[in-house]
Structures are given as structure tokens and as C-alpha cells.
């Protein structure tokens, strides 16, 4: 049933996305609230790197599952 020669990639009329149908709740890139969130995120990632320590990679060992 499969073939490789006749299948063409169709040119598709783009469907409207959900975001276009309803106003996005996400703040714009220059939003101070977003900047604050990104700052919190960066601090969180820094804390992950500091707290975990590379020895955690040694500890994170599992038995093979399915």
C-alpha cells in the first residue's frame, strides 16, 4: 500500500489556529510580568544546577523497564 514516487507533498490551505480564534492569554515579549517570570525561571534553573550536584547523575540509575 505504500509508495514513494507518486505521493506529492500537497500545498495546504492553512487552518486557523486556536490562538487566532481566541485571544492569547500569553503576555507579550516586553511584558514586565513575563520578564519577572523569566527571571524566576532562570534563578530556579541556577538553583537546580547548584543543589543537585553532578553526583546526582550517578544516583539516577534505573533497572531497564519495558
Amino acid at each position, binding site marked *: *500500500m*505504500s*509508495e*514513494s*514516487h*507518486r*505521493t506529492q*507533498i*500537497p500545498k*495546504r490551505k*492553512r*487552518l*486557523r*489556529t*486556536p*490562538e487566532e480564534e481566541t485571544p492569547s492569554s*500569553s503576555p507579550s515579549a516586553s511584558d514586565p510580568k513575563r520578564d519577572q*517570570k*523569566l527571571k*524566576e*525561571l*532562570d534563578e*530556579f*534553573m541556577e538553583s*537546580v*544546577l547548584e543543589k*543537585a550536584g*553532578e*553526583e*546526582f*547523575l*550517578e*544516583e*539516577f*540509575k*534505573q*533497572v*531497564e*523497564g*519495558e
Partner: protein
Amino acid sequence: MKTRVFGTEIEYALVFSSTSKSDRSSLDTRPLLERMEDMSSLLAEALKSSGRPVAGQFLGNGGRYYVDRGAHPEYATPECSSVRQLVAHEKAGDRIVRELVRDADRITALQGRPERLRLFKNNVDAWGNTYGSHENYLITPRAMERIGLIIPFLVTRQVFAGAGKVVANGAGDVPFQVTQRADFIERVYSDRTRETRGIINLRKRELPRYGQNLRLHILVGDANLSEHAIALKVGTTALVLRLIEETTDICVPGLDAPVDALKTVSRFPNRPVKLVGGKRSYTAVDVQTIYLEKLLNFFQNQERSAEEDTILRWWSSTLDGLTKLKLSEEDGLLLDDPGDLHRRLDWVLKLWLLNRVRASGRLGARDSRLRLLDISYHELDPETGLFERCESLGLVDRLLEEADICRAMHEPPRDTRAWLRGMIIQCLANANVDVDVRNWELIRIVAGTEDGTNLHPFKKLSRTLNRLDIKLEDPLLSDDASIVERLNAFSQTCSVDLSGLTEVL
């Protein structure tokens, strides 16, 4: 098949983390399997003391919690009939296991043990061991005969369904892959779930019944954190299955070497993969676009549900976003994401997060500490999990309300056999009966003794004479008057009060 029944199975990873640096070394002296069995036992103890209605391995929400190979705690969702329902139940499973971990930590604290448990939803540890996240779909026998038509779709859907993986310092390899599981798949079809895993697993636990619908068991997917990624993965797969079931003549691009293509796309998502014959090549997005277009044509003459319509729109906008996404595959860098896919797709979000850390100049592309962030992404803890932090900061798009997840932790889906299973478990939890959910298809109810205790398992004759077997062979069975009649008759014969259950059913 217009009403699709599907479910997912997630194997979780548990790690003991010492609460005291000085005790860290003592933990390592125990053999790994022993340690993992210890952790799983703690969760079993937590489940027992939680008061949650349970019968065997099955829960009151119709799902199944058990310990699978490798001592991994595993949650299988109940049978769902909509994508939204499935996402809610998979997320509910995450929460249930997380609650068990929290309760297990209380137990270890009471025992004075200097460790706490950490829970992860991913598919590979830091040593290269894998564990699964499987999908199940009810399909017609005709679709099973033509199931090869779905392979190119399954190989390439990772461009939106992958969870992303930071690669260890392997020479000549890329620093980041789109999926966690691609490297562990060795066949297109296989009856094994270890060693030689297939994209599709052919193992049949249930007896196949001639002419009836069958379970399609897919091993190739990653465990997703993003609600949108789960919805896209399951929703698009269900749509392609409908196309295979209901059309007579479809042509899809046959991949020359599907397993190799799986690994290539994981490393180089924009690189074309060879088609059968070797003369042409398509990118993963090209292949996905072909499937999408065939479905759009199919639905010109067929009815589609509101949910199918939504999935088609998300699929389309995601493929548009992927077309505009700019990557530097060799450097593992996300250069541009004009479609904001990092708000919806796990691997793009993970790459976006890693890029933020790398942009600070602290870490290079091959720094092993990036793997710490990779693992942290999958930790199911609001305090320490990176994805969970992104979610709480509103940096990812959500599909569900919190109430949807809370409801799914306790309520089975209303329109599949999970409803009957869940209601029996819930309503008979305190009745004078022993409920034994033997498997997904059979529930055995054994009347208790006059003094209100369960009949001892060794009293086989009494248990046989005082039991009722309820078979749930049809996954779509949710309402059956004959079951209520049999429950009423059993109630009278054995003098047990089942009115709470029969009123609900």
C-alpha cells in the same frame, strides 16, 4: 471507528535522595534492584494506608497501578473515549503516583530513614537504561491488517510528540535529540518489550476474538509532560487510524528503513529521510503534512467530531510552527521559534530552557550539567520539577483545568467499561464482599461471611459458590441492565447489600 477507545501506560522512575550528605554513600551499597523494590514497596504501603478505593491492581477511577518490570511503578489510564479525557487521566496518574511518593516519604520519615523519594516521568536514566510509555488503541481487524500504513506517521510524529533528550558526551553525536526512545527501538514489529523493542508491539495478552476489535500496542512514544503534546500524540494517531479503517485506497510515503529513519529524525529533525526506492526523500514535517492532507480530504465527505476538528487545527498549526522553527542541530541550539512551540511541545520547551542557561555563557553544548536540567525537567514535584515550574509560571499552554485532573483522580470515564469497573470498586469498598478485579475484562465479586469478614482464599468451594463474575469484554460497555439484574440476584442469594452500587449503575 468513530468512537475510539484508548489509554496510556507510564513507567515512572524513582530515586532515593539522601537528606544528609554524609549518608549518601551508605545508600549505594545496596544492589540496584533491591533499592528499587524497596522504593516500590514503600509506595505500595502508602497506597494501602491512603484509604483510596482499590481492588487488586485497579483503582476507583478505573485505572491500574502496579509495579512493572525493573520495579518501576506504573500507571495505566482507564479506557478513555476522548483525547481530553485521556490527557486528564494520564495527568491524574502523575498526581496519584506523586501523592503516593509524598505519603511514602512520611513513612520513611517516621522510620527515621535519612532519605526521601524523588519521582520522574521520563524514559531514560543517566546511565542509558530505558523504561516505557506505551499507548493502546482499540482498532478494527481491518485496520490491523493494514497497520503498516501507520508506520511512516509513527516514525515522524516525534517532531511534535518527542520529549527531548540531552545526549551524553558521545563523540560524533549531536548534543540533543528530539526523542528519548528512538535509540531503544530496533524493529518495526516485535513481540518483545525489552532487548528488541518494536515500534509496534505484537504481544497479545488477551485472547483475540475472531472478528472483534483488537488492541494496537505502540511502544515508540515518549512520556510527555505537556498536555498539548499528549493530546497531539494520541489525537493525531487516532485520526490516522480512522483514515486507515475507513478508506480503501490511500497511498502514504513508504520509508526505506523506518527504524533508521526514527533515529535520524530524532537527531536531525529537519533532515530528509529516504523513501522506498531510494530516489526521493522527505522531511518528517513533509510526511506529517501528507497524512494531515489526506485526513482533510477524507473529512470533506465524512463527519468529524468537534474534538477531531480541534486536533486537526492543532496539528496544522504545529506543522506550520515546525516549518518556521530554526535549529542548529549540530550545536543543539534553538535559533527561532516564531510559532511559540515551546509553550506546547516538550522537546522544544526543553531546548528553549537549555538555551537560556547556555546563553548565560556558563555552560557549553556538551556540559554534563545540562543533563541535570534534562532530568529535572521530568521531576514530578512542584518544588523541584522544571516543567512543573514552567507550568506554574504560566510559561506553557494548558489544555485542562486543575479540576479536570482532580476529577480524573477519582472518577472513571463515563462512557467506557472503566465506569463499571470504577463504580464497582468504589461502591463496594465497604460492602461485605471481596472485589477482585482479575484483569481489564473480568471482575469477580465474592460474598463475605455472616460475621462480615471475607472468605479465606483457601475456602475455594465456598468462594466458588458465593461469587459473581462480571465480564467486561466490550471496552465500550458502560451501561448494561443485565449486569444490574445479576447484581440484584446475587445480592438476594448471598444476602449482601449491593444497593449502593445498583443505584449508581
